């Protein structure tokens, strides 16, 4: 369903992108996501799975290059357009939207420094890919370190007593990587490339990290089984193991010098964290759409649900959450994409507030659906599980709130 954008500055191009993406989300993503949701994690990524139908179609249409700038083969999209497109994709399926987002991650991270080798070997081939044969992932989370790897400039981030489980060591012209990234790596078991965020200097704790763009066909790389989980079952997740993997220095994006890793991580997170808020707006709107449609038709106690003031009030509260989530997350994403000194705490608000709203909206939706909402006959049951995952995915809301609070006490008020 379309929605009114409270933005009088939308261009015709913005609207066309929104319409075209909505159609793709509705006609291609929705039916495939529904099928994948009821399959096992192994079936989801099997050769004949509709997951690949989706990925190939998305690559064919260029949806994998949304975040990549035009000079490297991506698109000349404004941050606002990126947000509009990602909200529609998440409306179709948040799991599949995440899959597309992380697929571009090695290229996205690489485009932040844009070294020649990275452009030639990683970014350009990815953008030119039209058959989903090149898929990236973001290897940051570790079995014992999840959301705490997302806390640049927080004191615990520099604690040398916290031992990383994936480390790179310089040896001549190559880095040697050992250890593992945990089962929460999205597209982990199907990716061909990894944006690897791992430790190079143990004396600095997590802050002593570096960012690599690594082809995963290098000797010594292996992968775990795809993860079975409550929500976003259409999204593949799983471990990646590194056993003496030798990586040429050319694949280092940044981080060998002190301070660079934290700064780049902060820039990265300011984008990705806000993007989770944008996704939240998409899934929350999907839940509102489903509920409105249901309430318009469902008769209880002799009249339609929408004719009860109590239901109208609850729909209004859901609507408020959808709209405020969009406004906050889009504003944070646009601001932080347009500045080199991002205000990360705003992205944290977008994610923490937005995903909580999305979950609340889905939860309230199920209550309005009644018994029907608990069944797999209605989409709302899937949306609820997908939204539940978001409260933890990409940084648990608790940790992101702590990080945001820490940032706030040191930066507030920021100046224009």
């Amino acid at each position: 369903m379309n929605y009114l954008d409270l933005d009088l500055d939308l261009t015709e191009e913005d609207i066309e992108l929104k319409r075209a993406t909505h159609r793709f989300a509705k006609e291609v993503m929705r039916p495939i996501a529904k099928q994948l949701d009821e399959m096992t994690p192994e079936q989801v990524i099997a050769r004949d799975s509709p997951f690949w139908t989706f990925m190939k179609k998305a690559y064919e249409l260029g949806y994998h290059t949304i975040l990549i700038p035009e000079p490297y083969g991506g698109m000349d999209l404004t941050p606002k357009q990126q947000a509009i497109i990602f909200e529609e994709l998440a409306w179709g399926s948040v799991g599949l939207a995440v899959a597309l987002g992380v697929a571009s991650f090695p290229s996205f991270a690489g485009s932040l420094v844009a070294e020649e080798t990275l452009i030639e070997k990683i970014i350009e081939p990815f953008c030119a890919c039209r058959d989903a044969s090149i898929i990236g992932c973001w290897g940051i989370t570790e079995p014992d370190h999840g959301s705490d790897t997302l806390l640049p400039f927080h004191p615990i981030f520099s604690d040398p007593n916290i031992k990383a489980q994936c480390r790179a060591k310089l040896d001549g012209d190559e880095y040697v990587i050992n250890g593992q990234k945990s089962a929460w790596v999205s597209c982990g078991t199907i990716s061909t490339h990894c944006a690897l965020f791992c430790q190079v200097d143990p004396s600095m704790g997590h802050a002593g990290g570096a960012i690599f763009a690594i082809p995963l066909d290098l000797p010594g790389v292996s992968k775990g089984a795809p993860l079975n989980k409550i929500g976003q079952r259409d999204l593949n997740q799983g471990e990646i193991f590194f056993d003496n993997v030798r990586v040429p220095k050319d694949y280092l994006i940044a981080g060998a010098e002190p301070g660079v890793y934290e700064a780049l991580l902060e820039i990265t997170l300011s984008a990705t964290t806000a993007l989770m808020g944008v996704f939240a707006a998409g899934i929350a709107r999907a839940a509102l759409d489903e509920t409105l449609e249901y309430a318009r038709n469902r008769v209880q106690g002799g009249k339609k649900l929408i004719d009860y003031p109590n239901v109208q009030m609850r729909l209004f509260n859901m609507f408020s959450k959808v709209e405020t989530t969009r406004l906050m997350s889009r504003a944070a994403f646009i601001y932080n994409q347009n500045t080199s000194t991002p205000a990360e705490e705003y992205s944290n608000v977008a994610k923490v507030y937005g995903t909580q709203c999305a979950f609340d909206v889905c939860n309230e939706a199920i209550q309005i659906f009644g018994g029907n909402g608990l069944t797999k006959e209605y989409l709302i049951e899937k949306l609820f599980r997908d939204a539940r995952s978001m409260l933890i995915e990409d940084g648990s809301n608790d940790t992101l709130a702590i990080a945001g609070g820490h940032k706030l006490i040191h930066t507030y008020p920021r100046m224009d």
Partner: protein
Amino acid sequence: MKILVTAKRVTDPDMKIKVRSDGAGIETSSMSFKVNPFDEIAIEEALRIKEDKGGEVIVVGIGSDKAQTEIRYGLSMGADRGIHITAGSDPDSDAVARILVKIVEAESPDMVLLGKQAIDVDDNQVAQLLAEYLGWGQACFASKVSINDNTARVEREVDGGIEVVDMDLPGVISADLRLNEPRYPALPAIMKARKKEIKKMTPADLGVDTTSKVVITQLAEPPQRKGGRIVEDVAELVKALKEEALVI
């Protein structure tokens, strides 16, 4: 091969339509619109012919300022340029055909490809009227089109089978549902479409009088369906068919 295709702005077929209280039209305030699905199939076919044979695809839309969105959609799919005939309300089929005649005279295409009908009013007349006015051959309800030099072989779905028509070009072809499956516009193509030309004209510029020959006097909702019931035996069924359904 130069191909003229049409892109009519119609109400989204997935949405429920509501008749306006004065019965003269439908409520459009909360409707979403899209390009007529049959026109979309025609655009897709034109693009495939162009990809195979080379040439140019021109999208024509007739309607309000907003009808430009649907022309732009055709350009996003891959058409080369657009022509927008601005008109306050949708002209009737005959006026549309006469407008298209003028555009054909100016552009001299090898073929006009249109949807067999628009899914809003379902008149199914423009292709036939246009061919007649132009004195061209027509092949309507195409389910397959193949081009061979100056002829088109068109398969048409008819009751009980497929009719094959060989037609000299230039000619008029109207697209049926099973002709092809239209592509989704690719994001880079959407970005490029912004820079493609859409020429604006009015029916008056073309010297076409769009005074409607068809007047809609009244639109009404179909009567509400009553629930069914289970009958006890055949005798009761026959009686009901005779006395209530009035079909035997």
